């Protein structure tokens, strides 16, 4: 048998671009963006509101998530049970979601049932019942979920990393609130949140799917044009500044077979001119399977099932964070390796790494946006971060132009390897001494506030 000894050439992809959209505006001020995605027979639609999580009253944090949960628990004269039946019987799913930079009500429905799905969405947003009994039960479930989440080391690592990075900002605290703040939320708070923040003027309905058999704008008009709710000023968005000094933190997790590790520091937002170069640099450092971090920690040393780094960016904040879970006895070695790799990246990113990152980013776009849900998700992100709607194509163009020098300069400017926060959730008795001996920063053992 014969197989060529070298890989076959790869054809240059033809000019992909992000799906195009039709834009319209309803009389009530709702902006409608419809992306036609042939072959996507499950329509994704998201009603997106311009409201930051930091708009929650400090002592009622979690009210946004609780509102999101309650919107679909009875609406338009239907009981919670009837409403769930109505959704399920047209194969639809409708979920609210609150995040740092937006509040969304998301619908997923087969295209044949789009009109019905939008009617249900309109009922949920326009005429939610907020029955006292449903409110009380959703609140109880939310409180239980807060407790449950604390049994998962990965979740705790994420929460404690935010605490360590963002100090007093809203971003430091759990999106869904704490036990104390959720306990304090009343039904009136949910009503108030809804009337203050979830109104049609300047909200956006983003939808994507195969619209060959339906007129999306007309369907939206029929379902949502009648929805009225007075507009209010949009609250200010916070600008959380990540901590910029070396920190080494340990959360004890007795008998954990693995240590859950996060290494994070200040980076940039998508609006920064260095974003494309940072994307490329991060791809080389930890953003892909073949990256330096995964190659060392997984493929060379076998410490972990996988290690990645990512750029987490919101409207006004940007961080780099490395995530992994490693064998307990390799914890100190693993965090040392990670910080060493992040440090060594400065000035050492190669032409090959840049070329690979550029190809990976630009050529993976058609795959990344194959699903209607992915298209809507990206537009949600663009609107919530106040980026232009042509950002995807423009950003890919900029990534194509990134040089090796650009990647190295951006990494050098944006990442301070002496100012990283290193957080370990693991068995303190087994990892404490190794971490303390490392010397990156004084080891500080932290106890989560809920413990």
């Amino acid at each position: 048998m014969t197989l060529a000894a070298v890989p076959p050439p790869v054809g240059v992809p033809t000019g992909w671009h992000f799906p195009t959209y039709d834009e319209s505006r309803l009389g009530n001020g709702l902006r409608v963006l419809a992306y036609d995605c042939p072959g996507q027979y499950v329509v994704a639609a998201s009603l997106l509101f311009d409201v930051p999580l930091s708009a929650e009253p400090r002592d009622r944090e979690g009210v946004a998530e609780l509102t999101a949960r309650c919107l679909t628990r009875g609406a338009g004269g239907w009981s919670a049970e009837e409403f769930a039946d109505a959704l399920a019987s047209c194969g639809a799913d409708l979920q609210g979601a609150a995040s740092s930079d937006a509040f969304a009500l998301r619908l997923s429905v087969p295209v044949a049932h789009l009109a019905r799905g939008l009617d249900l969405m309109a009922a949920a947003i326009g005429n939610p019942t907020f029955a006292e009994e449903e409110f009380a039960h959703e609140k109880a479930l939310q409180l239980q979920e807060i407790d449950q989440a604390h049994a998962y080391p990965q979740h705790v690592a994420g929460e404690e990393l935010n605490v360590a990075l963002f100090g007093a900002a809203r971003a430091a605290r759990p999106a869904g609130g704490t036990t104390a703040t959720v306990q304090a939320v009343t039904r009136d708070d949910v009503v108030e949140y809804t009337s203050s923040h979830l109104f049609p003027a300047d909200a956006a309905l983003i939808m994507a799917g195969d619209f060959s058999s339906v007129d999306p704008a007309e369907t939206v008009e029929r379902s949502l044009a009648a929805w009225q709710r007075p507009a209010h000023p949009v609250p200010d968005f916070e600008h959380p500044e990540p901590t910029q000094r070396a920190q080494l933190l340990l959360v004890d997790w007795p008998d954990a077979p693995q240590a859950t590790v996060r290494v994070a520091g200040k980076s940039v937002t998508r609006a920064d001119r260095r974003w494309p170069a940072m994307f490329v640099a991060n791809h080389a450092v930890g953003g892909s399977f073949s990256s330096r971090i995964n190659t060392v920690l997984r493929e060379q040393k076998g410490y972990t099932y996988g290690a990645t780094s990512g750029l987490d960016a919101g409207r006004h904040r940007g961080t780099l964070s490395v995530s992994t879970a490693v064998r307990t006895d390799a914890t100190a070695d693993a965090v040392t390796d990670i910080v060493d790799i992040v440090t060594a990246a400065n000035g050492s990113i190669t032409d090959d790494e840049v070329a690979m990152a550029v190809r990976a980013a630009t050529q993976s776009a058609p795959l990344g946006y194959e699903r209607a849900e992915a298209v809507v998700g990206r537009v949600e992100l663009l609107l919530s971060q106040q980026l232009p709607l042509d950002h995807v194509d423009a950003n890919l163009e900029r990534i194509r132009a990134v040089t090796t020098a650009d990647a190295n300069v951006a990494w050098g400017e944006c990442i301070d390897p002496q100012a990283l926060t290193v957080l370990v959730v693991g068995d303190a008795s087994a990892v404490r001494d190794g971490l303390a001996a490392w010397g990156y920063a004084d080891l500080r053992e932290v106890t989560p506030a809920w413990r």
Partner: protein
Amino acid sequence: MTSRRVREGLGFGREGGRQQQGHGQAQDATLEAESENPHARKTRPVTLRQQTAGKAGTLLAARSASGHRYIASVTADATYPMVSRTLDNGLRVVVSPTPGLGVVAVNLWYDVGSRHEEPHRQGFAHLFEHLMFQGSRHVQPGEHFSLLQGNGGSLNATTSFDRTNYFESVPAGALDLALWLEADRMAYLDDVLTQQNFDNQVDVVAQERSQRMDNVPYGTVFERLLPLVFDPGHPYGHLPIGNMQHLAEATLTEVSAFHARYYMPNNAVLSIVGDVTAEAGFAKADQYFGAIVPGDAPKRELPPPLPPLDTPARLDHSEEVPVPAVWFAGRLPADAPDNRALTAAALASSILGEGDTSRLHRRLVRGDQIALAAAVSINPLIAGNSLLVGSVRAVPGHDLDEVTAAVDDELRRLATDGPTDDELAIVRAQAEREWLDDMGTAAGRADAISGCALLFDDPDVLNQRLPLVQSVTAAEVQEAARHWLLPALHAQVRVLPSAASDAAAVAVAAGDGVEV
């Protein structure tokens, strides 16, 4: 648990490596093992979603809550063309063209899974799958990933009970590259494998197990549950992730033997789905795979179908978990081309435990408010039986006897009264939506096609699945519930919070005294 999936989905803003999975119920997470977690897109495991797959184009009628009957129109016809051919060396190839898509999915299913493993090498099929990424004659270790990701592709592999699955989605221009890489490791895996790489992947798999099971609350439940449903010696008596001690004792020689035994063109299927014509797809398949010498493919030997459990074993286990939870599992009919009985059982399981409209959710979570979450699902399998799995997490303060009494009550009620018309309409609508969702990417279609082609030797089975869902009657659902789902037919594992860290497993005799 769908609500959590969507809520957590508002993960605005991360670029680069994928965030590791958050908390959530590990319903299916341990029933299959993966090669590469954090960087790749994942296709769904073969569960009810694919089980209920079939041709779209259905009329559904369901009562709307406002009192009038909502008649939905016919969903767009979303069938996909499929052309099959078998190469001279026995490789079955299916091409499904979607012109203009810009991407192509390549998907190989090999007819080997954890059920084929030697008793003292549990987990070997999955370890082997990892080694398939450690280079082959013309491919350096790590190159499989770097070449594909570096050309915009996404890729992974998974090992389940019945099969091992390798897949990548690439821009159309990289189809040749994907096929060449797959062909090279099918033909010559062991040319470059070193002891060092082998040892490294044994370590990686051990960390995979830790990350997915040992460092996760309730993470080892399935490992405890399976041997209660199937004898430890049964092909489904152990999980694909396997036994780490067995893997530590495995040798490089065994890797070569495993490759020689199972990895050959006539023990695999290849599907190519997306922006390629049928002629070009077959020509390329032949160009890269055609010269690979066939082997002596193992004959498929399936154990006889087992009846439902007659002595429902129960295991109580304590560990550091937030709330008490119970998992139950039972046998179901094996998957087959015309799997009416399994489809009926799948619909019964959906009525009981899929989503906010399900009976367990309404009774335990919403009504009695004694549970935080309740779910029932099926795992279609071919070796004699499929698997039914359910789970309930209790509200603190309510013990598991109370919870299981309510579950048992609902199981009996479905068996006694059958489903309502509205319930049947709802689960059919859900199945249709899941089908459209699964078929929404070339990767999803390729996986489903490979599955039917490998397991049933007939990719067209795929197109018969949704019509089957639509044609199964209320009486058949009731009969499935009566025959397979009654509480006396299930094993259960109860997980109880322990203050002490030395989690002790306690075997509890149940029924007429089966010791576990």
